[in-house]
């Protein structure tokens, strides 16, 4: 295969990755990594570099539009980012002590179940809970625009959400995958934040986390310019298109798309765990 063939194939995969990644709040790595490694036989280390680039491109590309639409909540994102960061440090420390193979399988199964639950949830609010006093103190409650006008929302179970984000950070520090999915699930089911706000806020958070590791991988020589170039350009275009689509997309359909992508990640993790590639 020549450069003239490789570049457009990667660009095409990146377009799709940016589109799905920005809609679901999962970043583009989910699609970029398997396409590069399984289909184009690219070494995993180049794929890791490319996948980090795709996560930042999804995050910033989508953010430029999301924030204007008013979906993402920077306060929630920033507050939870503290937990994720601490968790990631803890995970990196734990990584030398436990088997990531077993963990990968267990986590894959948990994720599979969570994807099923997310797809089945129909109403925005399942139980009427009292507003969380911490959420009020930190002014986390906000509103977003819908066709029916400004929709106000209240954040619940802030402590549980914070603890889950610490767990999400730990898992991503240990396994290097799956943090976006846990973030969306924690915000959606524990904190009862509207789904579109959850995915947009997750997009903000994964960009910050990926930027932290991207510079390290770049200076280690994992970021190859001929691979990263079509990835970045494709993902940026895809994420802008995805964002345009988000305001029109119905929440039940968005939930189903999210569940399918998370299900694919879960199966990927279980297989990696069994084959010992994690």
């Amino acid at each position, binding site marked *: *295969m*020549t*450069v*003239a063939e*490789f*570049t457009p194939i990667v660009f095409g995969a990146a377009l799709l990755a940016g589109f799905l990644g920005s809609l679901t709040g999962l970043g583009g790595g989910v699609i970029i990594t398997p396409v*590069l490694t399984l289909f*184009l*036989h*690219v*070494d*995993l*280390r*180049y794929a890791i570099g490319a996948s980090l*680039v795709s996560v*930042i*491109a999804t*995050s*910033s*590309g989508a*953010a*430029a*539009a999301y*924030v*204007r639409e*008013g979906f*993402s909540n*920077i*306060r929630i994102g*920033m*507050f939870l980012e*503290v937990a994720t*960061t601490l968790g990631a440090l803890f995970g990196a420390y734990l990584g030398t002590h436990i088997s990531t193979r077993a963990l990968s399988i267990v986590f894959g199964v948990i994720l599979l179940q969570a994807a099923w639950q997310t797809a089945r949830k129909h109403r925005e609010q399942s139980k009427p809970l009292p507003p969380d006093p911490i959420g009020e103190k*930190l*002014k986390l409650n*906000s509103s977003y625009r819908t066709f029916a006008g400004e929709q106000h929302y209240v954040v619940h179970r802030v402590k549980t959400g914070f603890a889950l984000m610490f767990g999400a950070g730990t898992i991503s520090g240990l396994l290097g995958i799956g943090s976006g999915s846990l973030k969306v699930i924690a915000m959606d089911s524990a904190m009862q934040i509207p789904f579109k706000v959850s995915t947009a806020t997750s997009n*903000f958070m994964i960009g*910050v986390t*990926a*930027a*932290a590791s*991207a*510079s*390290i*991988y*770049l*200076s*280690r*020589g*994992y*970021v*190859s*310019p*001929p691979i*990263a*170039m*079509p990835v*970045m*350009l494709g993902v*940026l275009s895809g994420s802008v298109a995805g964002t345009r689509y988000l305001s029109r997309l119905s929440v039940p359909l968005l939930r189903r798309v999210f569940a399918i992508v998370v299900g694919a990640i879960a199966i990927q993790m279980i297989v990696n765990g069994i084959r010992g590639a994690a």
Partner: protein
Amino acid sequence: MNITDRSIERTVSVLLLWGVILSGTITLLGGAIFLAHHWREPVSYQQFHSQPRIDRIIPEIFSGALHLRGRSVIQFGLLLLIATPVARVAWSLVGFALERDRKFVIITTIVLLVLLYSLISGALTN
């Protein structure tokens, strides 16, 4: 001027939009230079070789980009892309300070410090 979360977010969004357009344009330019020279060459990424110093050490990326070397221009665009989330956090910090929201100034400072720590330790790796 009345400073609200919405007005901060609007400014952040404009900042990000320009950051993304700038880094995307530069990478596109670098990609065009690279493709013009190498489009006929075969690709082989099955075996991992760490990138040469000129494509991974930040000052060397800058000087290569100034000479319009395709790969260096791509890496320079990528560095700008990596900087966009940092700019987003930094600008939010300014916003929360203007809002006099002390709790969020502390929270955002923690996030920014961790981010800068990884960026600097990344830049110092050889």
